[in-house]
């Protein structure tokens, strides 16, 4: 959701499929290197991690590596909090991201059962309002927002 919203606020379209398929091109600058770093950090292969770390350091500098590592650290934490406490998706977020979740294929995750299914009327409304929400984001694009090259 936030990746797509981030694209909307900068007038770009990023492919959210890269989230569930690491080999998919996201369109995010240096996205492939960042995805490889995330995968290697969570994986077991030390040699792969060393190479992906170096790739990010060369592409985005040492500060970029630190901030990428900090995001990996954050979500290693937040994901576990969400899954261990059984929280549902926040009401409007659940509805607005309905199409997105189908698109990237995460509805089969075990933790999906923590979010009750929406009724037919709510699902129909979400089909209309979901894309509209992203269009609104495009309109409120922040002027002068910094982007990586």
């Amino acid at each position: 959701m936030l990746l797509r919203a981030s694209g909307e606020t900068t007038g770009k379209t990023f492919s959210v499929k890269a989230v569930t398929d690491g080999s998919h091109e996201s369109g995010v600058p240096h996205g492939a290197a960042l995805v490889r770093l995330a995968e290697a950090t969570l994986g077991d292969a030390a040699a792969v991690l060393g190479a992906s770390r170096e790739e990010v350091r060369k592409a985005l500098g040492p500060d970029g590596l630190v901030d990428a590592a900090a995001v990996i650290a954050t979500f290693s934490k937040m994901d576990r909090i969400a899954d261990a406490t059984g929280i549902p998706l926040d009401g409007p977020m659940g509805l607005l991201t309905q199409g997105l979740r189908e698109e990237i294929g995460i509805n089969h995750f075990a933790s999906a059962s923590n979010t009750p299914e929406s009724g037919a009327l709510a699902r129909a409304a979400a089909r209309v309002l979901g894309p509209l929400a992203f269009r609104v984001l495009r309109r409120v694009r922040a002027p002068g927002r910094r982007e990586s090259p």
Partner: protein
Amino acid sequence: MTALDYETKQLAYQGAPVVVREDLVEAHRRAWRRIAEPGTWWTGEQRVAIAAETRNALSCSLCRERKQALSPNAVEGEHQSLGGLPAPVVDVIHRVRTDPGRLSKRWFEQIRAAGVGDAEYVETISVVVTLTSIDFFCRAIGTAAHPLPAPVAGEPARHRPQGARPEGAWVPMIAHANATGPEADLYGVHRYPNVGRALSLVPDEVRGLVDLMTAQYMPVHQVARASDDPGRAIDRAQMELIAGRVSALNECFY
């Protein structure tokens, strides 16, 4: 590794292959200190034991077998534990560290039936994820994990917030409207998403979560505002791509 004693030494990144910005180092120091100090339901000694058991989970053969199985329930056995913590608490630590995407409400209810209080459970989760988060940071930048802190003596506060109520998650949480009295500062003026309120049965753990998140990612109030730039060396889209990929690898629906 020897324990870090906060009277004489502090967590540091001097040997790291990259310079870590100072606000992040300070946030990690505060997180390490929180692990060492008495919490709301666990003593400092118990909290450090939870942190040690979190690392130990990575070498547990039961966890490894369960991770490979189609269902974690298909593999019976005992965790390889360091000892000192009740078996159900060890199960919580190992499962949350090694296989968080397949936790279930049924499993949680079994843990509760085995005698783990809901607030003790929340505090355990918080220590596990704090340790896990900083360990992953060290791994990603290519430096050794920090020695665990030496426990600080003292008694837990044993404060159960009156505003915590069931609202659909496995554990009670404090709604914004119920954050009053000692919890009046908990969310400030901002709307916290469910994940920001998930640990609110132990309010100090929310305060710790926010402190760490602000330095590692961004302040809570900026998260839902996709146009906000938290001023990192990578842009917002790069941050969200990493976040999404990590969450998918963890099989986290939220």
